[in-house]
């Protein structure tokens, strides 16, 4: 059952706290109850009710003393279990991090904590964020609150599937996600929520378990565009501990929201109209164009000629970086250790047992494409094509302000589907990966329902560090779409 407090948006809850309509402790208890009632979704790996209530009490005390810290103070949120949290188990969805309790806090979660946000728990994810379904988690798949459909439970998407499911099922007011090739935007589309991946360098990567360092970026997952703007504003900012963090001031992202799209030029990339695209994806995309035009934007066709090569480029670069990043899991300093007589065997046993099938596959591919004799043919070639993909976007942005595409090629599929062939699963990210390779900001906004009654998202992509235009156009799209804000009926039965 939804109660009045869990039905609020983040912005409305912040206003309620400011007015004194309810306390952070009351709000937090409502969400802890909702989490307990929805454990069947498997959205959380670790619940942290003691931390949540302690932070909520501290928030209420600050507010009573007139020292509230802004719109996130006292707001209950969930944290993807890829962010290191001091004193709280951090698993990355992997067996190999068994028992790992960081002695430090990631910069993004520290920023949220320092702004007064209340951590409810750590959400489930694909192992090391490698997946588009949440099925690769060592802690089991997450069920989408939109299911079951035709008798089958649905995936929430991935890798930030636990965060997406928790936001959609009203188990938190917002959640952190990370996006390497679509891991915020695709689950946002599947679960009918908003997910923003900011520009590479906008949020610090320090303390986030690394997957592919040149692609990983943290972002916000919420129910509305305004909520995403509020939460991202707190997460973002320069951090001297991440050398790829951009030394830029964080604008007030919410200030851009009311501006509308009159005067904006929206690019529609012709190469995204891919072969075999489903009719309803095409239809929702056309609807998005019509909505933005009706709101006063001009739309033009643009060309991103290297789009078709983005997935192949990604599936060289991401595994290569992953194989390197994951070398640290060797059973010596933290996590799982599988004993053996020699050091080398201990490494092999620990990694062989600690990594699941998809992670093993990517570590092996990555090792191969970086190995002597193959580096130029695969990795260097992919870096060159990546440069061409980035150039395509740069050229398009000479004549448009923002680009509109579908977020994902389908609505949510059932748990267990698309697992026969890894490449079928990789195709989920066909519309999100190019943006990631170019390091650009992208957002998924819920736009409508498929014929099966499941959410479909639209993606807006912007210039580097121009999240404001992305959010501004997203707000216009959101307002035109009038996406159902009521809970999927099945979720309240769980």
């Amino acid at each position: 059952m939804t109660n009045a407090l869990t039905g609020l948006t983040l912005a409305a809850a912040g206003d309620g706290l400011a007015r004194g309509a309810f306390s952070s402790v009351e709000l937090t208890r409502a969400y802890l109850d909702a989490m307990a009632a929805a454990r069947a979704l498997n959205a959380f790996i670790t619940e942290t009710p003691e931390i949540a209530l302690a932070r909520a009490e501290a928030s209420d005390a600050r507010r009573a003393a007139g020292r509230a810290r802004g719109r996130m103070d006292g707001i209950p949120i969930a944290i993807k279990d890829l962010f290191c949290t001091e004193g709280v188990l951090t698993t990355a969805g992997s067996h190999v991090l068994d028992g790992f309790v960081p002695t430090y806090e990631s910069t993004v979660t520290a920023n949220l904590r320092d702004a007064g946000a209340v951590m409810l728990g750590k959400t489930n994810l694909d192992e090391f964020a490698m997946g588009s379904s949440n099925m690769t988690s060592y802690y089991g798949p997450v069920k989408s609150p939109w299911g079951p459909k035709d008798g089958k439970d649905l995936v929430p998407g991935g890798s930030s599937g636990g965060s997406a499911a928790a936001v959609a099922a009203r188990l938190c007011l917002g959640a952190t996600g990370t996006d390497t090739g679509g891991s915020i935007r695709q689950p946002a589309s599947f679960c009918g929520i908003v997910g923003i991946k900011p520009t590479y360098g906008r949020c610090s990567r320090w303390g986030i378990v690394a997957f592919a360092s040149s692609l990983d970026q943290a972002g916000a997952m919420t129910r509305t565009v305004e909520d995403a703007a509020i939460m991202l504003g707190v997460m973002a900012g320069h951090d001297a501990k991440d050398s790829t963090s951009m030394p830029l001031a964080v604008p007030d992202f919410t200030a851009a929201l009311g501006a509308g799209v009159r005067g904006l030029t929206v690019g529609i990339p012709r190469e995204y109209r891919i072969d075999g695209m489903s009719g309803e994806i095409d239809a929702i995309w056309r609807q998005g164009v019509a909505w933005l035009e009706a709101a006063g934007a001009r739309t033009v066709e643009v060309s991103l000629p290297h789009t078709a090569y983005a997935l192949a480029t990604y599936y060289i670069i991401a595994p290569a970086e992953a194989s390197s990043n994951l070398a640290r899991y060797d059973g010596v300093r933290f996590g799982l250790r599988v004993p053996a007589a020699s050091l080398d065997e201990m490494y092999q046993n620990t990694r062989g047992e600690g990594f699941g099938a998809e992670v093993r596959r990517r570590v092996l591919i990555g090792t191969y494409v970086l190995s002597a004799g193959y580096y130029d043919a695969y990795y260097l070639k992919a870096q060159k094509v990546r440069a061409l993909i980035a150039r395509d976007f740069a050229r398009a942005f000479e004549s448009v302000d923002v680009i509109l595409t579908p977020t994902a090629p389908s609505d949510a599929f059932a748990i267990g589907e698309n697992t026969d062939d890894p490449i079928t699963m990789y195709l989920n990210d066909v519309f999100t990966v190019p943006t990631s390779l170019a390091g650009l900001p992208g957002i998924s906004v819920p736009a409508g329902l498929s014929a099966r009654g499941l959410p479909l998202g639209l993606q807006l992509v912007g210039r580097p560090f121009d999240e404001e235009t992305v959010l501004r156009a997203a707000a216009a799209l959101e307002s035109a779409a009038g996406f159902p804000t009521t809970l999927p009926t099945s979720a309240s039965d769980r």
Partner: protein
Amino acid sequence: MSLDRTTVKTIATLARLRVADDHLDALAQELSTILHWVEQLREVDTDGVVPMTSVAAMTLRQREDVVTDGGDRGAVLANAPSPIDDYFAVPKVVE
């Protein structure tokens, strides 16, 4: 490029990843399929293209060369699977 089971075994050794012998053939097939698929990049003309090594247009900053952190043995060792005294312990490497 098609990989055979011997190559997969070599890669697995390089990656320090134990792979059971009865998984080698299936894995070779899977990895070959993925490699074959990514090889579509050969179609792209990349002559004269500078490989992209950094996403953001920025030069890496340098900080003062001074000690700013450290000396926290307890935190460093807190998650060690089986530390001995103040050290990480591993199976004997040198006789």
